[in-house]
């Protein structure tokens, strides 16, 4: 707000051309200096020899002399610095706004007046004096003396106190039918059944409502409902997004974790800790692993990681963006802060430095998004852990022993070991992604293709060796692209028109695919310059796609030289997509499976070594060695025998291959990036959090390792550490998790209390749940928010207790209708209408938006609640919990860029009739029906849903296959209950709207059903406003 006013003032000056008076200096120019200049031009740093702290400093100028010539803007260096196409100053952040420059110019023109004693200070960083950053303490509950007020619990006291301040009053309670429908949608995301409604109405006990609350909170469907809210905030999706949007088949365990955590009412602090560092803080638990899906929930750029190495600029950008998403997801979700704004410069509005932003990146510096293996059975996990430890112990013992033996073996053994190491590397060497030569793709199989090598001059050829490709495309693997029929010829004519000599002819019958076994042709003895392979029947690649590919061709001389190595290769056509596919791969002396040659050599050497060792070893050492070997073999055997591990798509420090190599747990170096650019790395930073909360960020660790001793905690600056060891990545996350879950962290508890409130009332006490900073909204009821946060923090951190507190309040139970507070309805819109009957103000005039909650908010069903309610009333809801998501699309072309074709899916397929929380969520092609109904976009962190209304929405609720099919199913269900149209009309109302129809409604609907059939009647009811809105 202040900024706006300053801006307005500046604008006015500019518009009127009036010079600002000297006393405006403080509001205009001084403010610019303080925000944009003093972080460098202060008395300590004095960059360029210039300080702008006092008038004296200003007039003293800098290294280049005076910066201001009072009264003469044209001669003032200061203006040169901040103007031009690329202003030299300020060094960080955007250039000064035109209005700001104009203000400085006007100030200089007016004599550069500076109140004599005014000392400026650096305000480049916003101060921490902000409501959300203040410590959290329990506020006093207001005393409400008005006997007319209904106070169920302190929530009502806070709400009523504020209403009274404004001369407003509570609305009466909603009727029981409305209440049970509201509460049911709110807590479990489904409407009540007619039987549930009738039972509730019949229960005259005072505790009936409370029992209903208990029942719904205890329902497993509570977790399914509220997990969806959480997944909105963390932007959970099940494909990567971006280009070639691949599915994440193992993302769902995180979704199930969230449901389970909510249903079991996991303490909120632990919920946070598990999602950031469950593997470190709660080792050996399934929750501790599956929760890490949080870190990987957001989008991931497959091409930027898998096709680009970290050394390329675009590869760096992809990884920077990836970490940025992790940082923003963590701080936005748990703290309601917008730290992302500090990526290029200090946060403009909140006390977050650019350094702190990169310290947060350092917390995630070793992580990537990848499938992480784990054991669901804790006993198996425990056993695996033990076995891994045991094998590690055995290995270390063996190493010790081997060192001892080596020292006995001398130079000769050392040489042998060096050779073994070399061959081991060759044998286990990663297969290189240089697949081979690949022809153009043909729609028909009997197309002739050729590829040939030019040996440079006629050469005497003794043998041929050729090997097929290996590519996992379409699951083909070994033998990819190997032709069914082909021949190999030699000639001195590059066109192969004359002088053609056949070396191999396989054109008469289909050949079996050889896999990657080398094919050999011996005893040739032909002299020629060119060798050509011609195919007459191509290899199938897809049902209507045929190709010819070959990994390697060796043309060998009698003395075993490969004449083709590195020779020019030509072909009828070729797909050149290096490094995987290019003609030169055919003669690069590398082929898939080459390593197995090294393996046989290795076996020989190992045998040799054993013989030598036998000579070196005394019986005792030999025995010990044998024993160790046996124990290792046994342990490995046992490890292998354990049940296979499960996978969850999570944030993990993995070791990968190729461009997407991962880190194996060694953290990447994180530098402060000037203007957020990866090409301008500055100082390297270690992990840390935010200083403004004054809480310790400590890497102490539950698992003391060698890394901890190397760590230096910077005690002078809480919330930050100096560079620690590179391999303590888990400890970094644990430190951040503890820093966030710290009971003293005011943001954490305020943030979650506000989110829970929002989902109950449709609006948060703070209307910007992801932003508690200066650009966010202010709380409407700051004391109530703090009271709720303290209750949650102190009440076992139980979200269910918080829910109960909220829904038991009178505030929650109010009617959503605009009550007659003594006004006539006709008065309501009339500003000047006197209030004849009551002292109470008309709330529609003073609080039309109901920010003070003088009534309940009527809410439109979210996409999921609408879809689930339709399934339920149609009698088709499959309530199976958990497991892989259902897919309501057909994937076309999965091999390259999957097309998610929703229109090809049969809406009648019962696999899709589960609750919407179990829907497979695609990023690049979101489900159109749900998207039109404002479901969350998994590419952004959604703190509150849009609630739009449009013609397109009317069209999908009328015409989408799901709605049409469910109308028919509902009709089938109701037909079995009654054949009478009057009764049918009543049943539809009861099931969908939790009430009987009025006589008029019943007549109208029954008449329609009689004329057009029950399915059409069902479709009408599913499109009623009353079905879509909750009072």
């Amino acid at each position, binding site marked *: 707000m202040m900024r706006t006013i300053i801006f307005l003032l500046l604008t006015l000056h500019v518009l009127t051309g009036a010079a600002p008076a000297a006393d405006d200096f403080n509001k205009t120019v001084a403010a610019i200096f303080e925000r944009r200049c003093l972080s460098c031009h202060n008395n300590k740093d004095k960059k360029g020899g210039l300080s702008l702290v006092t008038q004296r400093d200003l007039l003293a100028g800098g290294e280049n002399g005076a910066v201001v010539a009072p009264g003469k803007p044209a001669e003032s260096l200061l203006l040169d610095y901040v103007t031009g196409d690329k202003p030299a100053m300020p060094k960080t952040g955007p250039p000064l706004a035109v209005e700001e420059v104009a203000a400085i110019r006007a100030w200089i023109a007016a004599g550069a007046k500076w109140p004599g004693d005014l000392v400026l200070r650096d305000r480049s960083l916003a101060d921490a004096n902000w409501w959300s950053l203040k410590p959290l303490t329990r506020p006093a509950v207001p005393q409400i003396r008005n006997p007319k007020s209904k106070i169920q619990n302190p929530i009502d006291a806070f709400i009523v106190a504020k209403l009274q301040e404004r001369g407003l009053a509570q609305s009466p309670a909603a009727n029981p039918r409305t209440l049970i429908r509201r509460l049911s949608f709110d807590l479990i995301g489904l409407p009540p059944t007619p039987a549930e409604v009738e039972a509730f109405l019949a229960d005259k006990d005072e505790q009936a409502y409370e029992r209903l609350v208990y029942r719904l909170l205890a329902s497993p469907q509570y977790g399914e409902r509220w997990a969806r809210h959480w997944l909105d905030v963390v932007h959970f999706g099940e494909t990567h997004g*971006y280009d*070639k949007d691949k599915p994440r088949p193992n993302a769902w365990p995180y979704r199930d974790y969230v449901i389970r955590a909510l249903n079991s009412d996991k303490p909120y602090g632990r919920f946070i800790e598990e999602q950031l560092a469950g593997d470190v803080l709660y080792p050996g638990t399934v929750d501790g692993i599956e929760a890490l899906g949080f870190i990987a929930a957001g989008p991931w750029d497959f091409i930027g990681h898998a096709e680009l190495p970290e050394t390329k600029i675009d590869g760096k950008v992809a990884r920077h963006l990836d970490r940025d998403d992790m940082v923003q997801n963590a701080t936005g979700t748990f703290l309601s802060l917008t730290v992302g704004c500090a990526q290029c410069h200090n946060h403009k509005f909140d006390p977050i430095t650019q350094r702190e932003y990169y310290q947060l990146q350092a917390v995630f510096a070793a992580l990537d998004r990848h499938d992480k293996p784990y054991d669901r059975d804790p006993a198996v996990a425990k056993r695996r852990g033990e076995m891994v430890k045991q094998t590690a112990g055995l290995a270390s013992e063996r190493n010790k022993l081997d060192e001892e033996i080596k020292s006995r073996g001398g130079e000769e053994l050392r040489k042998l070991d060096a050779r073994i190491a070399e061959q081991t590397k060759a044998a286990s060497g990663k297969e290189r992604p240089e697949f081979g030569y690949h022809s153009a793709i043909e729609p028909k199989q009997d197309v002739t293709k050729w590829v040939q090598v030019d040996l440079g001059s006629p050469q005497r050829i003794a043998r041929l060796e050729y090997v097929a490709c290996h590519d996992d495309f379409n699951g083909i693997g070994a033998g990819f692209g190997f032709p069914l029929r082909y021949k190999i010829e030699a000639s001195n004519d590059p066109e192969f028109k004359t002088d053609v000599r056949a070396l191999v002819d396989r054109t008469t019958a289909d050949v079996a695919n050889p896999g990657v076994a080398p094919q050999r042709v011996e005893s040739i003895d032909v002299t020629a310059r060119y060798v050509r392979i011609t195919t007459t029947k191509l290899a199938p690649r897809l049902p209507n796609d045929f190709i010819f590919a070959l990994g390697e061709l060796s043309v060998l001389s009698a003395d075993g030289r490969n004449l083709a190595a590195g020779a020019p290769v030509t072909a009828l056509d070729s797909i*050149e997509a290096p490094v995987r596919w290019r003609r030169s791969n055919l003669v690069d002396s590398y082929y898939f499976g080459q390593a197995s040659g090294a393996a046989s050599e290795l076996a020989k050497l190992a045998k040799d070594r054993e013989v030598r060792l036998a000579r070196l070893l005394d019986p005792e050492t030999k025995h010990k060695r044998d024993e160790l070997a046996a124990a290792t073999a046994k342990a490995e055997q046992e490890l292998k025998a354990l049940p296979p591990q499960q996978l969850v798509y999570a944030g993990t420090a993995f070791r990968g291959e190729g461009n997407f190599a991962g880190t194996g747990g060694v953290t990447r170096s994180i530098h402060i990036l000037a203007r957020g650019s990866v090409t301008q790395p500055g100082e390297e930073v270690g992990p840390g959090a935010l200083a403004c909360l004054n809480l310790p960020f400590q890497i102490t660790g539950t698992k003391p390792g060698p890394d901890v001793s190397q760590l230096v905690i910077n005690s002078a600056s809480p919330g930050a550490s100096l560079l620690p060891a590179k391999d303590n990545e888990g400890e970094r996350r644990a430190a951040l998790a503890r820093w966030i879950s710290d009971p003293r962290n005011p943001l954490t508890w305020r943030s979650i209390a506000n989110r829970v409130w929002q989902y109950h009332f449709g609006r948060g006490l703070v209307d910007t749940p992801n932003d508690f900073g200066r650009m966010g909204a202010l709380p409407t009821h700051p004391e109530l928010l703090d009271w709720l946060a303290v209750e949650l923090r102190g009440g076992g951190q139980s979200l269910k207790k918080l829910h109960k507190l909220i829904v038991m309040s009178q505030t929650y139970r109010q009617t959503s209708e605009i009550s007659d507070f003594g006004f006539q309805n006709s008065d*309501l819109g009339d500003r000047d209408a006197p209030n004849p009957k009551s002292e109470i103000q008309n709330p529609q005039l003073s609080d039309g938006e109901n920010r003070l909650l003088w009534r309940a908010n009527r809410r439109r069903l979210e996409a999921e609640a609408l879809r689930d309610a339709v399934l339920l009333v149609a009698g088709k809801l499959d309530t199976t919990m958990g497991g892989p998501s259902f897919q309501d699309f057909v994937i076309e072309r999965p091999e390259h860029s999957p097309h998610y074709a929703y229109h090809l899916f049969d809406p009648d397929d019962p696999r899709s009739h589960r609750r919407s929380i179990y829907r497979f969520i695609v990023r690049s092609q979101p489900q159109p029906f749900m*998207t039109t109904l404002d479901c969350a976009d998994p590419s952004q962190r959604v703190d509150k849903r849009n609630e739009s209304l449009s013609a397109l929405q009317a069209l999908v609720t009328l015409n989408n296959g799901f709605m049409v099919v469910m109308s028919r199913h509902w009709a089938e269900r109701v037909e079995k209950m009654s054949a009478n149209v009057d009764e049918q009309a009543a049943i539809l109302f009861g099931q969908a709207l939790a009430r009987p129809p009025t006589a008029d409604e019943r007549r109208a609907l029954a008449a329609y059903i009689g004329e057009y059939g029950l399915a059409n009647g069902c479709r009408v009811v599913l499109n009623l406003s*009353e079905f879509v809105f909750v009072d």
Partner: protein
Amino acid sequence: MNMQGTNTSQYSVLSPRYELTRRELLATVGQGFGALALAALLQDDSAAEAAGTGGALAALHHPPRAKRVVQLFMAGAASAIDLFDFKPELVKRHGQPSDFGEPVEAFQNGLGPWLKPIWEFRPHGDSGKLLGEPVAKLGKVVDKLAFVHNVVGKTGVHSQATLLQTTGFQLPGFPGMGSWVSYGLGSLNDNMPTFVVLPDHRGLASNGTKNWDSAFLPAQHSGTVIYPGTPTPIADLFPHQKGDFITSQSEAAAQALMSRLNHEHAAERPGDARLEARIKSYELAAKMQLAAPEALNLADEPEHILKLYGLDHIPSAFDQEINALEETIHFSRKCLVARRLLERGVRFVQIWSGNDNGFPRRNWDSHEDVERDHGPLAAGMARGAAALITDLAQRGLLDETIILWTTEFGRMPSSQGGKGRDHNPYCFTNWLCGGGIRGGVTYGPSDQWGYKPADRDNPTQVYDIHATILHLLGIDHTRLTVRHNGIDRRLTDVHGQVIGELLA
């Protein structure tokens, strides 16, 4: 209404404070409900002539030069140096080892020898602009086009680069340009969607629908996907095939019954404008069911128009190989449909050429063979685009319609070993045409190779193109903002300069 003739005094200058108030108001009206939708649905049709109905801007920031936009997007990265930006130096040095005078990072390390333009270039129009042979059809309208040859991107990764051109950000989660225009200006005809997307019928480009997503803007500002000439051009416009129990009689009676029950429901709940708006939305849906098929029906187009677009003879089947005839028919059909949509008040039409970057190539990502893919794609594009421009001009609509031709990046002046070219995010071409655009100009030259801008310190960025288009629509790009997660977001982020040289 002709905006250019309007007295400028009606465009109130918004003070910052006023904007804030309005934004606060819009954000809060009706319990956080999409207030704009509400406004759109409840607004008197005659109310906001200038900006259309339901736009976030109470008044335009300055008199507009255009009302509508067509964005032609070549997915996969079209090669400027083979089509629009002739480089004699490449002809001279063809086949010589490439030397950029500096280390270059190429996406697939495709830094083979210099590769001359694949096609002959010939001068066209009064401006004498040189065009590559496949786009020669644009020659007739070339004096209406303004070329920008020094556009630079930020990345050579298709997905990020495509998002950057469509949304102004290189990561998902931001509204497309069409969504911003729809949000800011509102609808010219409530019976039609404001923002329509005509994708390549063979599949979506990188990022799928995220390129036209409304993101944090209300859902109705998302691009509505239309597949002209298919059995279901607009999803859910009519009941799903399983709804065989629905007849036109049952539908009419259903509308009447819903209207009655919903009106009663609303009457019992006074003071909630959303309930009235929802009733209106069903009436609009019914109108759209009539208006949309009519807009997509090309049967009433006269022969000379079909000829203009190359749609007068449509074969029943096409070759398996990529070919110019097929590309022309697909692209031209979208152009003709675009013209009909524009005539009926659609504000923003985005036409795509090229599907995902897979094989066989039906996209502009010509790593292997520029001639094979670019030839037919460019010929089809040029025919359709030239026809659209001619057709709009002869109807007097070109003056108020901006056409932007763009792609995610360019292609390298070196070959990728053979007949293909690798990605070049360092320099590529856009062209613009129509309302407020100065025709016949070539702005911002590239260097002698087409590798980078000639003046590297002053390139053109997507922000500048977006700022210019918003400017022509009467919008100051710095003042169309929405607060989201603590930041006042806008199409141009914190960048963007209106390119004065392009303005007529």
